[in-house]
Structure formats: structure tokens, C-alpha cells
């Protein structure tokens, strides 16, 4: 059951000489890369590197100042085939189920389809027991899980996650990482931004290393952790990246 008739795949997502300027500061500089279907990609970089801005560009809620961003299949920027979870997700003042159903209602999905889809998402994300709770009374970890469930409900082909475990304790972090791996294994492309090296090691198939608005590496996770070519990336791995 799909929301969108999926013809050709939306990916790859291509960035061509993309820059983003906010005010008089250039926050992202000359980005050139291609995001292809496959294992989970981690967007790694220190605070302030521009990870969130890059995700928002991918997601389409920011427009580049220069350069081009395009999907192989045109029309993907209509938000039906990709979804994003923000670092501090905003829960609607409704129940857990109503939060998950919300994007489906926006897309005009019939009540019967919706019920089936919401039930499936609840089971897959382990939120079944919380279904009737008010979303804003959930713990931070549960809210993050719900935000992922809500984004995932529309069965996106690609999911953007912005530091999904930034404020969570180790147990909750572990649970969220499990959920993310499961989603990635199910065939959804995940692009996850983090500054947590451990998390990157645990989840990444591919690494994009971003530093001060420049993309310094795009390589397989193994190659990256074995020894990145870029000196800034090497310093970041040693935990001594100069700002």
C-alpha cells in the first residue's frame, strides 16, 4: 500500500555546486555529491558544521543560494517520497495515534487505509502500548520514537534524521538506533546527521564528513574509520578537531 504511485525511484539525490548563504555568511560552500540508494549514510561533523542546513536543503524546506539540487525522478520534492525528523521534533497536542495519522490525513488517505497503516507503524515502532497517550506527555525518547514513526508513516523512500539521539540517555539512544537500523534494513534510505562518532560507527554504511560548511569526505564507513584522507577528518576522529 503506497501513498504515491512509485514509478522510477527518486534517488539518487544530486547536489551540484550548492552553496547556502544566510545574511552575509556563507554557511555551506560548493557542495558536490550524490546520495544513492543503499546502506545508511551518516552526515558526520562537529557542531556548527552545517549538518542541519544540509538536511533542510535535501528535504526542500530551504533553497540553495547557488547551485542545483535535483532528484533523479522529478516531482520528488513534493513531500510525499521523503520525510525529515528535526532535532527537536514538535508533537501535535493530540494522541500518539493522531500524530502518526496526521501526515496521512494531509495526503487525503482514506480512513480504512489510514487505520491499517497506523496500526502497522505502531507495531513496527513499538509504540502500541502508548497509542492513546497524549503525545506531549511522553518522555524525550518516546517522543523521538514517535517523531520517527510519524515521518515514516508516509512510507518515504528516503528519511532525513537530524541528531535523533542528541538529548537521550544510553538506553533510549540504543532503542532509537535499533529502530533506525530496522528502517534502513527495510529498504528506506536514511541520511542521519550526528556528531557522535560511536553512533556513526554503529550505523553508517557510508560517511559524509562536513566541516565548516565544506564537504571534505564521502566514503564508505570502513574506509573512513580505517583512516580518512582528509586531515580535518583525522583530527575529528582523534577528538582534537580545531574549530
Amino acid at each position: 500500500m503506497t501513498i504515491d504511485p512509485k514509478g522510477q525511484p527518486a534517488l539518487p539525490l544530486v547536489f551540484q555546486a550548492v552553496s547556502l548563504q544566510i545574511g552575509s555568511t556563507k554557511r555551506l560552500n560548493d557542495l558536490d555529491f550524490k546520495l544513492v540508494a543503499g546502506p545508511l549514510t551518516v552526515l558526520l561533523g562537529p557542531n556548527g558544521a552545517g549538518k542541519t542546513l544540509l538536511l533542510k536543503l535535501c528535504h526542500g524546506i530551504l533553497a540553495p543560494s547557488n547551485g542545483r539540487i535535483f532528484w533523479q525522478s522529478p516531482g520528488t520534492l513534493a513531500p510525499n517520497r521523503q520525510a525529515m525528523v528535526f532535532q527537536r521534533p514538535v508533537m501535535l497536542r493530540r494522541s500518539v495515534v493522531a500524530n502518526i495519522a496526521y501526515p496521512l490525513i494531509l495526503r487525503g488517505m482514506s480512513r480504512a487505509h489510514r487505520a491499517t497503516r497506523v496500526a502497522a507503524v505502531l507495531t513496527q515502532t513499538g509504540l502500541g502500548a502508548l497509542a492513546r497517550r497524549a503525545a506531549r506527555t511522553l518522555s524525550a525518547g518516546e517522543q523521538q520514537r514517535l517523531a520517527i514513526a510519524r515521518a515514516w508513516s508516509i512510507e518515504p523512500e528516503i528519511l532525513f534524521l537530524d541528531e535523533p539521539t542528541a538529548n537521550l540517555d544510553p538506553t533510549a539512544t540504543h532503542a532509537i538506533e535499533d529502530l533506525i537500523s530496522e528502517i534502513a534494513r527495510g529498504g528506506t534510505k536514511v541520511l542521519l546527521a550526528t556528531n557522535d562518532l560511536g553512533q556513526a560507527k554503529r550505523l553508517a554504511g557510508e560517511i559524509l564528513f562536513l566541516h565548516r560548511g565544506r564537504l571534505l569526505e564521502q566514503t564508505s564507513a570502513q574506509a573512513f574509520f580505517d583512516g580518512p584522507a582528509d586531515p580535518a577528518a583525522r583530527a575529528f576522529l582523534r577528538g582534537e578537531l580545531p574549530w
Partner: protein
Amino acid sequence: MLADWAVNEFSEAIDTAWALIRSGDPVLVEIVARSLQVSLSAVFCAGLVGLPLGACLALQPFPGRQILLVVLNAAMGLPPVVVGLLLYLLLSRAGPFGFLGLLFSPTAMVLAQTLIVLPIVAALSRQILANLWEEYRESLQSLGASGWQALGTLLWEGRFRLLTVLMAGFGRAMAEVGAVLIVGGNIAHVTRVMTTTIALETSKGNLALALALGLILIVLALVVNGAVFLMQESGKQSVDDN
């Protein structure tokens, strides 16, 4: 002694009020009903115009928005007598809308109270919706909400707070006397409401009856606000509204 007099007057007022209510005095019932009818109609009209106006001011930048905001905020404190006077000039036989023949009718009173309540509803709902929009904007956009869908979501998410705004407007409408007195004329059985009766009875020296009506007015305000409070609490239990 003055104190004794006040106590006597007060207890007499309560007795009078109680007797009036218990006997279901038809004149009293009529006055209370008209008060409610006029003020509820005014709040309904003010909500119908004020909520969309507030939403528009919150979400849609347009030229002159800041000026309109300042005017609205200032108009929240508009003295009802002045509103009544302006409306009187417009509706009086010689005025531009005199041909409508609305002066000294309940419709004119609804119109006057609508004008008094409208700035309150528009300005306060704008503030609420602007704050909500700041919080929700990116998420709703990301989830795929169109402009109208986002507006619907905001109104629903803010429903309890917006209801409180309407209550504030209702309180102001019920309590004001200047405007309805001028455009209504306090005509018995036609345009006499609680506040105008209180003013009249007080000037006639009929303090007990005036106080009795005052007490009923206060109890009504308590009942209405209590009902809204209960509604909000039951709402919060299912959906936390923090």
C-alpha cells in the same frame, strides 16, 4: 451606622435576588435572557470576523500589518461609551445608516458589543496563533501541510486558548453598559439588559433590586467561566495542552 446600613442593604439585596430568582420573575428572566442573547450574538459575530482576522495577521505578512496591529491593540481599551456614541451618530435618523432604522434595537446593541469585543478577539488570537506558528511552522511544512491545512491545524491546536479569548470577550460584552445604553436606549421589554437596568435602578434609588441584578450578573460570569474551565480540564486529560 454606615456599616450596619451596608450590611442591611446587602442582606436585603440577597433576599431580593433570591426571591426574584425563585419566583422566576418574568421581567427578570426577560432581562437576563436578553443580556445573554445580545452578548452571545456579539461574541459570535466578533469570533466570526476576529479569529480569521487574527489568523491572517499572525500568518500572512501584508503591507500595513504593523499599523493595523497597533490600532487593534489600542482598540482593546476602547471606552464602550465612545463606541456607543460613534455608532449612535452612524445609526441616528440623520446619520448615514439611519435608513436602516436600527437605533434603539437589540441589533444595534449586538453591533455595538461586536465592535467592542472584536479588537480583543483579533489581537489576542493573533498573539496565540503567532506563537503557535513559530513553534509549528517548520514541522507542518515538513509533514506536507498546505497553507489552509496548516491554518486548520493551528486553530485546532490552539482551541483551548482561543476559547479563553472568546470568554474574555464575552465577559467584556456582558459587563459593558455605556454602549448598549446609548444605542439601545434602555427601553423596557425591548432593549433593557442587566447592566442598563442596574444603572437605572441605582439612579432611582432602588438599590436592593440593582444589587440583586449585580449579584446575578456575577454568578452568571462565574458559571460561564467555570463551565469553560471544566471543558478545558477534560480536554487536557486527553490531550496535554502545555
